[in-house]
């Protein structure tokens, strides 16, 4: 689990990115960490991974202080960064070099995912496309069986079939003991994967909710016109009419449109805990 208490952080000669930031997430979740550019998503992932040290406050992940970079902690954390570099070696050599460093590494899972992603173990990593290399990293990360997996923009560079494969593999590979954090702008790519949404803006959490709570409270719909629809919390014009968010009533549930939800949150139309705002604050995005 992650326990962040009153953390402050700023890069050298820059204004504070996090000020008195707190977050608590239990294991067994796949968390979607969302936010606009510069909101602090990658910095938060770096703080959690132990790549940077907070200026103040405490971070505890699975009983470890990340920045101490205890080897037992590092053996249970795997981060797939947005940008990556590989030495000029084959996939199998890379696996041979790095897998022994992760005590729970599962080779069967790795080769199953390779098959799913159509990756050849003999291929040279530097001769693969960006998307293929990302798929390899995702496969390797999931096979480590680390208690915490951190993905920074995992679907960037993946083609459309690979994105759906990613969702399928993610759902089938993650166990109850693991905590997965996915930071992304491509919210549509992860909407069926995550079970918790955390939205940060200006170094603060502006929304935090479990997916099943959201479906109980909000109803996402596509309507030809807004006429006669009451309590529209947020709407966006689309080619077929309007995508809307309304309060869920009578136990009706819908699939979450994460992009619509995110825009609603960013436009301060929906807050956490959910509040119904007056109609004059609705924002239409054209």
């Amino acid at each position: 689990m992650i326990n962040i208490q009153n953390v402050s952080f700023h890069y050298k000669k820059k204004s504070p990115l996090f000020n008195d930031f707190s977050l608590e997430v239990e294991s067994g979740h796949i968390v979607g960490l969302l936010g606009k550019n510069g909101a602090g998503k990658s910095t938060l992932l770096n703080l959690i991974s132990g790549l940077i040290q907070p200026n103040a406050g405490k971070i505890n992940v699975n009983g470890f202080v990340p920045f101490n970079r205890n080897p037992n902690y590092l053996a249970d954390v795997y981060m797939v960064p947005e940008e990556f570099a590989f030495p000029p070696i084959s996939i199998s050599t890379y696996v041979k070099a790095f897998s022994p460093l992760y005590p729970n590494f599962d080779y069967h899972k790795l080769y199953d995912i390779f098959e799913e992603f159509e990756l050849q173990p003999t291929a040279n990593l530097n001769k693969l496309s960006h998307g293929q290399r990302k798929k390899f990293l995702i496969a390797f990360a999931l096979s480590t069986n680390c208690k915490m997996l951190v993905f920074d923009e995992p679907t960037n560079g993946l083609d459309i079939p690979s994105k759906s494969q990613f969702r399928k593999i993610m759902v089938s590979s993650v166990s109850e003991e693991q905590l997965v954090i996915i930071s992304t702008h491509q919210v549509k790519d992860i909407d069926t994967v995550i079970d918790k949404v955390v939205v940060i803006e200006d170094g603060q959490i502006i929304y935090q909710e479990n997916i099943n709570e959201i479906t109980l409270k909000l109803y996402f719909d596509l309507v030809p016109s807004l006429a006669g629809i009451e309590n529209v919390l947020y709407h966006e014009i689309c080619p077929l009419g309007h995508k809307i968010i309304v309060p869920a009533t009578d136990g009706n549930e819908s699939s979450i449109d994460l992009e619509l939800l995110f825009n609603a949150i960013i436009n301060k139309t929906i807050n956490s805990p959910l509040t119904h705002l007056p109609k004059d604050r609705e924002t239409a995005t054209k």
Partner: protein
Amino acid sequence: MNSNNFFSFSRFYRLLRNDILLNHKKYLLTIVGGFIMGFIVMYLYMPNLIQQPYSNSSFNAQRYSSLFIMCLFGLGAFVGSAFSELSNKVKISNYLLVPASTFEKFLSQFTIRVVAGTIIFLVIFWVDAHLARIAVLSRIEGLNGQLAGPEKYDYIKKFHWSMFLIKSNYPTVTNWRLFEGIGFILTFFSAGMFLFSVKIFFRKLGLIKTGIALVATLYLIMVIMVCFSHLFYPETKGFSTGNIDYMLSNGYTNNDIFQYSIAYLAPLFLLPLGYFKLKEKQL
């Protein structure tokens, strides 16, 4: 603190294996390149024409020592390329998250770059010295045939490590004493440690920045010397230093002691400094 968090032999072995699997081609090329370069340097440095008047000690221990020091720059470059993963942000994040303690990461680089590098360097130097000698001697014979038999082989002395025990053969042969011999080795070790930590301190233009840091350090020492000179020798003028050389009862001069003290103490600071800097390294 659990010592397993600090050092575990199995984890250290896995880390070494990881490094060798990732970089074996680079290391192999470095060894082959070093071997070829070493041979070329030695071949060119050894006299390929017999000087007149002929002296049977043309290429002796002192010439081999100069050659050895020259070749040490190659080892310095190899040691200076330690922690190559710390050269850019992407690689830094991968390296820092490798599941091993900072001490194991530091020790693995030290083992590969300094320990293994030095052993391989010594082997290459020994082989190259013998090969270059044979190549040069065969060429001398081919050129003028002035020398034949044992005389020819004495023209360039056969290399052996005991040659380095000789400190000077002028005016008489003197050997290094233990204290100064160790001090001499530690001087090179200190320089090696300085280069070893380059990447930990400087992400980009490491060697240039290290050069600047070295000049700044020397300048700082000079400034301190000038200040002390003014303090203890009031007659000192301007920027000159009152560096008076005098012989101590143990046969060393005060300046010898000063230099050897730096050589002996520098690694004690440089190694922990590099380790703690790596421990505190951030993205």
